[in-house]
């Protein structure tokens, strides 16, 4: 492994921010009391939980901090929202084909073992939903709608605020859950001004440590607790609070809110620079997913006719961390369900690479990637058995460029 690490895999996990670390440390060996204890030593810890709850509430725009319940991770938040359904007569759920497994595997479980019917909405080539189709899928017996705010693989944003409006208009009793794990801290989230009932976030995606998450549950929303135990989190989530993790999450949430503008400007500019650079340097690169509706830190690029794991291994040797939707990188043998749902052809789906930036990414790092990546891709293109196809693709791309140039689009001549 190279000594220099260029970490462009922030949708997988992030570096814990120093503010979060500094704030969590005292709760291991100094203020280690149980916030539920009667003595002051433990009881005083409760105020730090209260502070963290407020910090998280501010990040997601919850009207009341008590609407924030701390969990162990994003997956638990999703499980809690979906498995907490209470009405035995409503057995229909709507979700999408491109959700994270922490939603898809739960709905599949309810379908298989608990008699639920699930509608999986498809997406177009850009990874976007059809709102008419969504509206039509809402029924009287629809118990829950579970839609992600931003896709973890492509970064594509779903209009969840608008969808919640549509849903409540058609069926006021339906519950609307949003998996906001990839949206929180990247784009503004303001639940109080939406019709969203529940919303899950994960700590380690916003520079808090792993092992802590949260779910927003709007006041008056009825769901059965998923983790049964003591009275913690007002009976909604049993188990002694992960105090240090929660304090860190609170601090990370506050920082994330402060850095939202930075994310929308500087981080976005670096992402765009990386994306444009790759597209101009490599003829077999193509972007997956809508470039219009996307979180600012993510780009998903396919390198046609070469395989993703191989690209990652070579990048890793250069200290560059990214991830891939290739079949080979997952435990199973199927490539990304997200890219397949978008109809990305097999020639591209196995060679898809996701670069996800953060506020810790620097311009120099982007330059380094743009300098190193072309050599890797050229080397791997040469190994591919699809030489004829690669040659044809190159010719097509070059003539398209020449045409643009002839039509007076200056941008293409600059390269």
């Amino acid at each position, binding site marked *: 492994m190279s000594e220099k690490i260029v970490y462009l895999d922030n949708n997988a996990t992030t570096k814990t921010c120093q503010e979060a670390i500094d704030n969590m440390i005292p709760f291991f060996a100094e203020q280690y009391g149980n916030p539920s204890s009667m003595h002051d030593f433990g009881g005083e810890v409760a105020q730090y939980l209260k502070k963290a709850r407020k910090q998280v509430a501010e990040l997601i725009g919850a009207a009341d901090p008590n609407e924030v319940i701390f969990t162990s991770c994003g997956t638990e938040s999703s499980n809690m929202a979906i498995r907490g359904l209470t009405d035995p007569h409503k057995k229909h759920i709507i979700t999408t084909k491109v959700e994270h497994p922490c939603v898809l595997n739960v709905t599949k479980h309810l379908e298989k073992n608990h008699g639920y019917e699930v509608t999986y909405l498809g997406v177009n080539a850009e990874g976007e939903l059809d709102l008419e189709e969504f509206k039509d899928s809402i029924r009287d017996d629809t118990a829950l709608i579970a839609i992600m705010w931003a896709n973890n693989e492509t970064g594509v944003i779903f209009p969840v605020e608008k969808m919640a409006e549509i849903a409540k208009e058609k069926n006021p009793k339906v519950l609307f859950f949003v998996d906001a794990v990839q949206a929180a801290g990247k784009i503004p989230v303001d639940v109080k001004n939406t019709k969203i009932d529940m919303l899950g976030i994960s700590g380690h995606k916003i520079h808090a440590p792993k092992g802590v998450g949260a779910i927003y549950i709007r006041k008056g929303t009825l769901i059965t607790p998923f983790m049964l135990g003591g009275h913690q989190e007002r009976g909604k989530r049993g188990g002694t609070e992960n105090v240090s993790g929660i304090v860190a999450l609170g601090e990370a949430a506050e920082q994330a809110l402060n850095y939202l503008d930075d994310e929308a400007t500087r981080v976005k500019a670096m992402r765009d620079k990386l994306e444009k650079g790759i597209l101009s340097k490599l003829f077999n690169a193509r972007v997956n997913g809508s470039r219009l509706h996307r979180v600012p830190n993510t780009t998903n690029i396919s390198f046609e*006719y070469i395989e993703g794991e191989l690209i990652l291994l070579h990048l890793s040797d250069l200290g560059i961390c990214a991830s891939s939707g290739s079949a080979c990188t997952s435990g199973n043998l199927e490539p990304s369900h997200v890219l397949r749902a978008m109809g990305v052809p097999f020639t591209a789906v196995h060679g898809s690479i996701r670069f996800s930036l953060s506020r810790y990414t620097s311009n120099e790092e982007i330059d380094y990637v743009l300098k190193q990546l072309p050599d890797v891709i050229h080397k791997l293109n040469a190994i591919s058995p699809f030489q004829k196809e690669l040659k044809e693709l190159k010719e097509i791309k070059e003539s398209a460029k020449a045409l643009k140039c002839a039509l007076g689009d200056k941008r293409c001549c600059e390269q």
Partner: protein
Amino acid sequence: MWEYTEKVKEHYKNPKNVGTIENPDAVGEVGSMACGDALKIYLKIDKNGIITDAKFQTFGCGSAVASASALTEMIIGKSVKEAENLTNQDIADFLGGLPEQKMHCSVMGKEALEAALSSFKGEPTEKKIKGRIVCGCFGVTEDKIREVVKHNTLNTVEEITNYTKAGGGCGKCKGDLQKILSEEVAKRSNGKKEKPLTKTQQILKVNSILENYVAAELRKDGGDIELVDIEDNKIYVNLQGSCKNCPSSNLTLKNFVENVLREHISEDVEVIEA
């Protein structure tokens, strides 16, 4: 992250023999874009049947590249006959092992070699689909599954998926895979039993079964049993002691003694009172 050996890393970082051969004597191509890996190998074979050069191109992960690179290294200088005897396990061994889930990469190498060698021998080069397709997701045939199970002594459906990818998609064929696996495992254990026992070995075996599983039970009721003779699947015994005059002695013989012997020897054993 996969645990690749240093040798695997060496071969995917700097693969040997990448490319094509002009006017090759044999070409083998397996896999497809849809399945996520494809391999094409080119061979140069001299008039003495020695592989003088081998090149490859592949679309696949690190272990696919390493397997193909290893394969070419292993066969250059070998005769066609020697190359034919190469197994996927040989490729994996050459690389110091592959992660279980990546064993299919070594199988792909072996298949590409097979395809190339059959093209060299003038056998039809178009892809032959032998047997019905069991796994629709990855287009894996029953014949291929049986062959891989047999050659690699596989014991679980998960291993079949690791070696052939079958069952790694929608998973609908897992029932079929289990059935094929059970059949192959049964064949394997039958194979072991095939060595015929000598008459003396037969007597010793039956006697020990009677002593260990039957006599002790009969003795509790004051009876006993004695082996008289064995003739093919017929075992002649004498019931003794209280069993001798017991009105239900025939039931004891058929329901108890015969069942025990069938369980330990074979279903077609017949127990007869001498």
